[in-house]
């Protein structure tokens, strides 16, 4: 990568030679452009066509049980645009006609019920809430060492949206939960018939049955017409195409809470029901897909989140964790919602080892990868929230590394 010297992105044109993008006046200022309704539903600029979700095809045997990652390196703000939310399916994308959608509640309840989509949309108490959804396997490929060269792949199984929906509590109260009820099984209508056991307490607390994201209907790949929202907890529990909720007195020990989403430790034992996503952060720019291009002023941009509450502080290190500076947190910091942070810095062209460290309002501090491995070993797959290091070379190229 060629790095421009000095502060100016564009050197002043040679004396007396005006910039050809200013003189003469560009064509787009002299020619009528496209009409107002060329795209009744809009799409990004053609110049942004590489800002897309990407699959790592060697990860899985089938693209219908796979993942496509959010291009975090190209995004800003704390909101993820609907077109770029990462996608994880286990049996492909169910395509459900909204009029044929049904949600069933049964098990340890007084009155088993069936709801239509219209029923949900007519339910008193509709809310809108911003929450992050992170797959528990996010950064899972990095347990044994730096592996994928780009935050789209190392951290791109997260998105942050405003959800429109109804508190799950409302529906459970309508069915009347039996005092013996302690867990809820949530089940999807896709070909994986995805299931997860959720503690009743969480279900009654802040879970939502959601039909909207960022103002419009849920996208098909996010569970159209209805998904479960389980704030702060691992993404696999946010069952898409939600068809069934069953109340029981114990967890179901489903495949996604036994074979998967249990955390194998170095001693051969495994943690189960590790629901909450710990505080975590990553610098999205600079990063391998967003290298530094200029000496002088630069904006370091990143995201932080915690399933335990609100991000209270983020520190950034440019020297691999020896020294830290507290970053500027931008915008409203909402609980269990992604938070954007910035550090404005001047770059003289020296090598950088960029890290970020998130803290939440419970006092939790994002650990280093070494600290994590010391407790968990390297076989956990899930819940890798260790501090990420990007090595910025003097030519601006940026690489996923580990330091010690």
């Amino acid at each position, binding site marked *: 990568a060629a790095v421009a010297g000095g502060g100016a992105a564009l050197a002043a044109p040679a004396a007396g030679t005006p910039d050809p993008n200013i003189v003469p006046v560009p064509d787009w200022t002299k020619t009528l452009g496209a009409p107002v309704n060329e795209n009744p539903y809009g*799409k990004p600029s053609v110049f942004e*066509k*590489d800002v897309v979700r*990407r699959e*790592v095809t*060697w990860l899985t*045997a089938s693209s219908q049980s796979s993942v496509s990652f959010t291009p975090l390196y190209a995004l800003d703000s704390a909101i993820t645009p609907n077109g770029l939310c990462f996608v994880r399916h286990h049996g492909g994308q169910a395509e459900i006609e909204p009029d044929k959608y049904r949600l069933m509640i*049964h098990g340890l309840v007084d009155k*088993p*019920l*069936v709801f*239509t989509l219209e029923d949900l949309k*007519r339910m*008193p*108490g509709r809310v809108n809430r911003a929450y992050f959804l992170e797959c528990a396997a996010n950064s899972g490929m990095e347990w044994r060492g*730096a*592996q*994928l*060269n780009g935050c789209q792949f190392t951290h791109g199984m997260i998105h942050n949206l405003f959800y429109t929906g109804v*508190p799950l*509590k409302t529906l459970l*109260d*309508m069915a009347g939960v039996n005092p013996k009820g*302690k867990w809820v*099984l949530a089940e999807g209508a896709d*070909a994986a018939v995805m*299931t997860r056991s959720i*503690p009743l*307490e969480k279900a009654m*607390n*802040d879970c939502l049955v959601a039909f909207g994201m960022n103002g419009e209907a849920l996208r098909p790949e996010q569970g159209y017409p209805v998904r479960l929202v389980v704030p702060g*907890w691992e993404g696999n529990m946010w069952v898409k195409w939600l068809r*069934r909720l069953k109340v029981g007195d114990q967890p*179901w*020990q*489903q495949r996604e809470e*036994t*074979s998967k989403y*249990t955390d194998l430790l170095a001693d*051969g034992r495994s*943690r*189960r029901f*590790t629901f909450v996503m*710990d505080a975590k952060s990553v610098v999205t720019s600079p990063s*391998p897909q967003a290298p530094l291009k200029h000496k002088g002023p630069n904006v370091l941009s990143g995201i932080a989140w915690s399933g335990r509450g609100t991000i209270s502080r983020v*520190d950034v290190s440019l*020297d*691999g964790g020896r020294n830290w500076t507290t970053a500027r947190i931008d915008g409203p910091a*909402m609980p269990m919602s992604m938070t954007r942070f910035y550090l404005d810095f001047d770059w003289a062209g020296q090598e950088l*080892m960029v890290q970020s460290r998130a*803290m939440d309002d*419970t*006092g939790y*501090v994002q650990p280093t990868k070494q*600290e994590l491995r010391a*407790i968990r070993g390297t076989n956990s797959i899930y819940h890798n929230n260790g501090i990420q290091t990007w090595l910025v070379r003097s030519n601006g190229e940026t*690489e*996923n*590394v580990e*330091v010690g």
Partner: protein
Amino acid sequence: DPQPGKPAAKSEKDKTDKARQAVNVAAPAATAPAAAKAISLGRPALQEEIAAWNIDVRADGEGLPPGKGSVKEGEELFLQNCAQCHGEFGEGAGRWPVLAGGRGTLKSERPEKTIGSFWPYASTVYDYVHRAMPFGSNLSLTPDQTYAIVAYLLNLNDLVAEDFVLSKDNFPKVDLPNEANFYDDDRETSEKAFWKKNPCMKDCSGEVHVTARAQILNVTPDGDPPKGNLE
């Protein structure tokens, strides 16, 4: 207070409530209507409807339908419906999942997590195979077929003999070897060190060196945009 999920102060009761250990304790949603039971939406679910969707099977056997199947029958069904992906002996073809073997590997560098080596409950095999397999034709197996395939998978994992017949009745007796090695989330105690008052800000370590580099592996997809709907 319009902010969702603010963590509340922890009470003694909370601390002793096992199920809540990993729960992000929050104030009850202020928005839920007071007299929710009065909402006249939805309709009673019919027993037949519940039966059509109520397919989950629990570790204690709840949810298992009547039926039975032998290892022998299971072998045949597995070779017809499963082996092309999972291998004749559950060893996995290509990158498709491995289902058998792996005993004693859990502490190794490359654990092989199979039904025999890792899964805590046999009920999960029944539930999942019926629910989600064969990949591409899920929900197509009858109870008897499913019992048979589960029996075969248990046999492949050296857990039952070749003449074993699995049924709703003897299912509770089937224990998987790794069950005792699972325990509930204990991060709040075992990782208490991550709650730090004042993380170090200056001169926190000696010199720092690069110890691992992703570029060497060269497994990252290239930067070209995938083919798609924007072209």
